[in-house]
């Protein structure tokens, strides 16, 4: 193999994270584990806030006298609709902060901020500010004591910066100083400005992510909506007393998800808040390069094997492959071209290349597009290496980021760990069963919607089910194929499933057919 050391294997933090998430995976059946949908859940909570916000705005009055009273009307008199909408609006926004926080921590622990993925990370950082501004501006609109505290404190924060000569806080020194126009401005920022900026920023954040999962599963949408509704009914949101700038609020039930910076400012100083916010943003933004990592190898196109079919470009989860005009004299229109800056080294392109077939005679075995650190030749060698022991054994394909298959390797299994199971060309499964004579093939990849490279699990499933090109040939006995999707650390369960699979294989009739083809050692040209 050309360099296993170049493959970023999960460290202890990632294994710990996987272990912590395992109970949720058990409860939510893997695919629906909320931890696999944190970005999408954040977007969903924004939708909820958007819809409820539109309802609230219908009744909201953008004036000094009207603001508090209109929110109070919604909360008290219209508790059954407006009150619930208000509570949902607040709780969905809070939920977004929780999922956003977890999203950041999770992507970081999984190392998905490094290498070519730096773009998603860096463009995510301003989103934190946007989300905070959203919340803070929302609290102004109620114009109760909490709004007053937030308004005065945010103005004081702004005044710390050398921007305004006439301090912004002077707008809040007395009730007479506050103008109704302020509410028109804040409502505009909260209802029009920030939503537009947020949509643009999310679009930018996902620019380099192909087929981003922007919706969580239906089950999760429903579950979280019901949960938020229950909370809205059990604990309806209320306002504080109307703002009165001649008084200081003595006790505030603050929303710590959005407003924690203000108490921090009250107990430290404006400068400290800016230091933490500014310093934190810079450190976060620099994380992809701290410490500078080695560049991961990029996929390489081998033109003699590339027919310009475009499957690899279609499947690349990061849009690293373009189809461009042919540069050799073969009679094809297009050829694949890799942008190394976008390639995350997953090898999914090899799995999608119809030329990736171990049946082919040539040595070394080549294909249209492959990873320099795990070539098709490496792939075939890895399968062939245990050919003598193959009869009656199970070939287990694993993924570097999923369960550690080396831990389950018994005498009756031979394991091959790949950068991603999406790298397995369907012909490779066929080959393992027909030409090498394994009695079964197991694929153990990352859990549903949690593929380290985003789409490897989906594509593998679809290729096996013949919903995606290149698809697994019909002749491959599906009863001899096992797919398991689980987290790193779930090796005991994998072991159990493999043992059961072994028993199932032993019970299957017609083992002779497999051994015949193995004995003939036949290899065939697929293309």
């Amino acid at each position, binding site marked *: 193999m050309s360099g296993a050391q170049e493959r970023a294997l999960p460290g202890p933090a990632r294994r710990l994270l996987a272990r912590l998430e395992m109970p949720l995976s058990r409860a939510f059946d893997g695919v629906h584990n909320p931890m696999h949908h944190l970005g999408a859940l954040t977007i969903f909570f924004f939708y909820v806030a958007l819809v409820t916000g539109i309802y609230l705005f219908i009744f909201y009055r953008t004036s000094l006298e009207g603001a508090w009273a209109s929110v109070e009307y919604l909360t008290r008199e219209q508790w059954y609709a407006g009150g619930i909408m208000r509570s949902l609006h607040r709780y969905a926004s809070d939920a977004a902060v929780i999922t956003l926080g977890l999203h950041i921590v999770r992507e970081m622990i999984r190392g998905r901020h490094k290498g070519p993925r730096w773009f998603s990370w860096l463009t995510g950082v301003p989103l934190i500010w946007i989300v905070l501004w959203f919340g803070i501006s929302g609290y102004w609109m109620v114009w109760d004591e909490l709004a007053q505290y937030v308004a005065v404190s945010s103005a004081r924060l702004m005044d710390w910066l050398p921007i305004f000569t006439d301090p912004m806080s002077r707008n809040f020194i007395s009730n007479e100083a506050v103008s109704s126009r302020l509410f028109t401005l804040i409502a505009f920022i909260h209802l029009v400005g920030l939503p537009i900026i947020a949509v643009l920023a999310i679009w930018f954040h996902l620019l380099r992510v192909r087929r981003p999962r922007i919706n969580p599963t239906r089950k999760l949408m429903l579950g979280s909506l019901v949960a938020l509704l229950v*909370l809205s009914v059990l604990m309806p949101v209320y306002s504080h007393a109307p703002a009165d700038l001649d*008084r200081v609020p003595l006790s505030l039930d603050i929303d710590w998800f959005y407003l924690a910076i203000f108490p921090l400012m009250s107990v430290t100083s404006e400068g400290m808040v800016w230091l933490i916010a500014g310093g934190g943003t810079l450190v976060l933004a620099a994380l992809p390069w701290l410490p500078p990592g080695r560049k991961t190898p990029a996929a390489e196109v081998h033109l003699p094997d590339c027919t310009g079919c475009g499957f690899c470009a279609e499947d690349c989860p990061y849009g690293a492959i373009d189809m461009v005009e042919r540069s050799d004299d073969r009679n094809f229109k297009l050829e694949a071209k890799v942008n190394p800056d976008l390639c995350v080294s997953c090898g999914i392109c090899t799995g999608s290349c119809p030329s990736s077939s171990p049946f082919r005679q040539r040595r070394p075995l080549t294909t249209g597009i492959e990873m320099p650190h795990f070539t098709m030749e490496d792939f075939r060698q890895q399968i062939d290496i245990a050919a003598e022991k193959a009869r009656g054994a199970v070939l287990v394909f694993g993924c570097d980021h999923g369960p550690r298959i080396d831990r389950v390797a018994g005498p009756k299994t031979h394991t091959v760990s790949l950068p991603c199971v999406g790298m397995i060309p369907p012909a490779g499964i066929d080959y393992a069963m027909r030409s090498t004579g394994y009695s079964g093939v197991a694929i153990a990849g990352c859990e549903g919607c949690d593929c380290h490279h985003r789409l490897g699990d989906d594509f593998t499933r679809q290729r096996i089910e013949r919903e995606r090109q290149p698809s697994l040939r019909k002749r491959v006995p599906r009863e001899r194929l096992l797919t398991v999707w689980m987290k790193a650390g779930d090796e005991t369960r994998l072991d159990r499933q493999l043992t059961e699979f072994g028993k199932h294989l032993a019970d299957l009739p017609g083992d002779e057919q497999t051994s015949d083809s193995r004995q003939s050692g036949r290899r065939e040209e697929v293309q």
Partner: protein
Amino acid sequence: MKRLARHAGQLAAWALFLVIIAAFAMGPAFSPVPEGSGELKISMAHLAERIEPCRPLTEEERAELPPTRRVTEVCERGRVPTLVRLRLDGELIIDRLVKAAGWQEDGRAYLLEFQPLPAGQYELELALRDTPREEGYDMQHHFNLALEPGDSALLEIGDGDVVLRLPERR
């Protein structure tokens, strides 16, 4: 049985989610000022005297100006920085030389301070120097402040007047 356990797990997860939101969405309560305290806001927007006084134009100087711009006097733009000293019960709590705003330092001098104070009776002595003089003050004021818990009193220093405002007692 397994299904039941899964459903229980999901329920527990959503419950935990709710508990976390409920715990921090409206509390724990926070007090911006210590218990039994109020605050004194000191706000100044004050136009100090010019560094150079305005001077009338001579007839010759006026004649050189375009007919539509024949003003009678010229003024240098710069204004003196305002010295603000505020004593609270004799203790100097503000001692600042505030520059006039603007590139040319020709605007008002702005100052805004928030001073949390325990409720009680205070004596405030304010002294301002806003002319080119080196010694003494141009404006001096004395106020008695009776601060109740939660009061946000405002000492407002304008161009020519200084007022201490307290909330109306309801």
